[in-house]
């Protein structure tokens, strides 16, 4: 049996096609919109953030190497992974993370502190993150005519590195050339300034136990840039009063017996010191810290030919005044006599001495002379053996080089009689101070024991004095070009 089809049946097909077309158009529009948003939010924003993470990771790698220049000098900026040209160190390119982030850093020694000779470093890091997804910008066209949204902020390199093409590889305008990139990517660049940390930020700083001082002792401060010391810690009307109450003590353990009058702050690591009238500043019993072992600096010039040992009375006048960065350097196998160090004429004279044995000598530092004494062994002297004629503690600095083995003990004993002005950086040494000396200076040590009624005056000018014992990042800026 045959049934004749009605003629109007064809409309159904047209209607169905139209419906599919309309729905497809709507779907395509939605998909296009979603894809664009997803492209921006998931790919470009992520790459933008990850490229900064990469740059900061490069900065951290460089920072670790800079710290090694004082904590582990032989292994700082190791070759061949790092390339050193003059004062500039170029890191290898490091790839890390699941998203193929890359980073590299150029570290350059760009400044010497004229007072201490400590170097400052600048670390320029760049971090790159690939941009996945559609190779197109995610500009929001509703920003207005001529106003770009995302592309002003997130600069994506699709074909070439725009930074190198515009400003050159070092960003200094030298040699700009189109540099192809392997794929769409975002690169961010940061610059960090790494500054030396000097050791004398408190009157006494010990990582281990502390006992002291005598019940009639006092620790206060002054600033030698304002003139000689006088007691001002009890007179708020005194113009130097604000500099007179920085005689702080920092203790890295809970074991602390603090006696005498302290015109400054006190910190312990888990101690039980409570506020009392003998401590004028802040008490904080939750301040952990460490002092890394001290190693002999490696940036000193070659030593002088003579003397190589001092066992009697010797007076030396350096051949040149030198600078804090390049002092006149003496390498001594022993130092047990009396050593007088003279200035070169009236010039500020800088001297460094390395004693590869114990330190038992009488040292006489004449005016205008700045001396750093590094010793490998122990130190056993009387207060009068530390003769610093200007009474400026910064002019006579003792550094106890940490023993290679942590099990090896090191000590500094200072006995009466005698007052003195000096600084001591001995993070591995047990310090014993006997008698009632009047001393100007600062002490960093492992443990401290002092039972006398000492008058200890911390010089605030020591804030910026001393050899670098660590580094810290003091400035951060992003190159947004």
């Amino acid at each position, binding site marked *: *049996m*045959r*049934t*004749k089809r009605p003629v109007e049946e064809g409309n159904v097909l047209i209607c169905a096609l139209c419906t599919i077309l*309309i729905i497809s158009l*709507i779907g395509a*529009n*939605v998909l296009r*919109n*979603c894809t664009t*948003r997803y492209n*921006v*939010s998931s790919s470009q*924003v992520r790459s*933008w*953030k990850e490229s900064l993470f990469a740059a900061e990771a490069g900065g951290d790698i460089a920072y670790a190497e800079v710290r090694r220049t004082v904590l582990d000098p032989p292994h700082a900026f190791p070759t061949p992974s790092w390339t050193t040209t003059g004062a500039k160190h170029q890191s290898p390119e490091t790839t890390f993370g699941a998203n193929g982030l890359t980073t590299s850093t150029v570290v350059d020694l*760009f*400044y010497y*502190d004229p007072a201490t000779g400590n170097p*400052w470093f*600048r670390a320029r890091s760049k971090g790159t993150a690939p941009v996945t997804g559609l190779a197109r910008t*995610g500009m*929001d066209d*509703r*920003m*207005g005519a001529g*106003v770009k*949204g*995302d592309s*002003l*902020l*997130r600069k994506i390199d699709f074909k070439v590195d725009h930074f190198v093409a515009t*400003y050159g590889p070092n*960003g*200094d*305008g030298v040699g700009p050339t189109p540099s192809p990139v392997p794929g769409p990517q975002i690169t961010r660049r940061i*610059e960090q*300034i790494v*500054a030396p940390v000097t050791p004398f930020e408190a009157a006494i700083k010990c990582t281990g136990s502390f006992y002291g001082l005598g019940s009639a002792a006092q620790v206060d401060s002054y600033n030698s840039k304002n003139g000689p010391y006088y007691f001002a810690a009890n007179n708020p009307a005194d113009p130097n009063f604000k500099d007179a109450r920085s005689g702080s003590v920092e203790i890295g353990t809970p074991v602390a017996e603090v006696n005498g009058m302290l015109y400054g702050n006190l910190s312990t690591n888990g101690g039980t010191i409570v506020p009392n009238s003998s401590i004028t500043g802040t008490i904080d019993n939750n301040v952990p810290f460490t002092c890394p072992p001290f190693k002999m600096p490696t940036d000193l010039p070659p030593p002088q030919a003579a003397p190589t040992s001092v066992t009697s009375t010797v007076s030396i006048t350096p051949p040149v005044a030198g600078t804090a960065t390049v002092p006149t350097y003496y390498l001594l196998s022993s130092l047990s006599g009396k050593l007088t160090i003279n200035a070169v004429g009236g010039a500020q004279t800088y001297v460094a001495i390395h004693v590869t044995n114990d330190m038992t000598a009488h040292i006489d530092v004449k005016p205008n002379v700045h001396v750093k004494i590094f010793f490998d062994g122990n130190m056993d002297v009387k207060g009068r053996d530390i003769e610093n004629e200007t009474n400026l503690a910064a002019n006579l600095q003792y550094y106890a080089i940490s023993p290679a083995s942590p099990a090896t003990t090191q000590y500094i004993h200072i006995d009466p009689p005698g007052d003195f002005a000096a600084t001591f950086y001995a993070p591995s040494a047990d310090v014993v101070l006997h008698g009632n000396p009047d001393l100007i200076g600062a002490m960093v040590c492992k443990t401290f024991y002092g039972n006398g009624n000492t008058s200890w005056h911390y010089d605030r000018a020591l*804030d*910026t004095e001393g050899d670098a014992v660590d580094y810290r*990042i*003091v*400035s*951060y*800026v*992003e*190159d*947004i*070009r």
Partner: protein
Amino acid sequence: MRLRISRKRIAFTLPEITLALAVSGVVFGAILTLSTSLQKSFNAIDNYFGTHMQQIRIVDYLSRDVKRGLIVTTSADLQTVTVTIPNYIIQAGDPEAVVNPTLVGTARTPTMAYTPSGWQVNYGNTTSIVVYSISGLSILRTENGTVTTIASSTDQLVPLTTDVELANTECAKTSITFQPIFTSGGAAASRSGTTVYSTAYLRNKRRG
């Protein structure tokens, strides 16, 4: 056997046409309503995500400037954020550029100064001021007088709270909301549900 259809039954009757028109009217009305609703919904969603992208952009701008900033302050009404940033790049007219014009556009070597609060690294003798502010429905970023619109919307794109903690933490906390097109009876959650939070820490020691 062949069935024959009577010619009398080919044409539609009036009730049939009327019914067909009525059904067609309902169908087309539904399609019209549906397409309009779809369009509105699409616009709302497009607007929502577009504005959300602008929120992210504001946060990214702020984070970038705060991280390299020296001072960050906020106005009392929490609608303006002012960031002081170093002058890292030498600009035309800067003292270095006057001496050597080829330095324009290059990075500046910093100088160091010791202050009572420690070492301070300075890029030039002056700093740049960046101000984030609201102008109508737009968020503006003004750097040394140069205005950039970093977000604009047909909706209300308003930083609900912009808070800078000056003490201790040294960070800038920002939350940004906007009013979506579709709301549920004007419920407050329709705005608060769009909030994007951000916390950016200063990498530099605060000077202000």
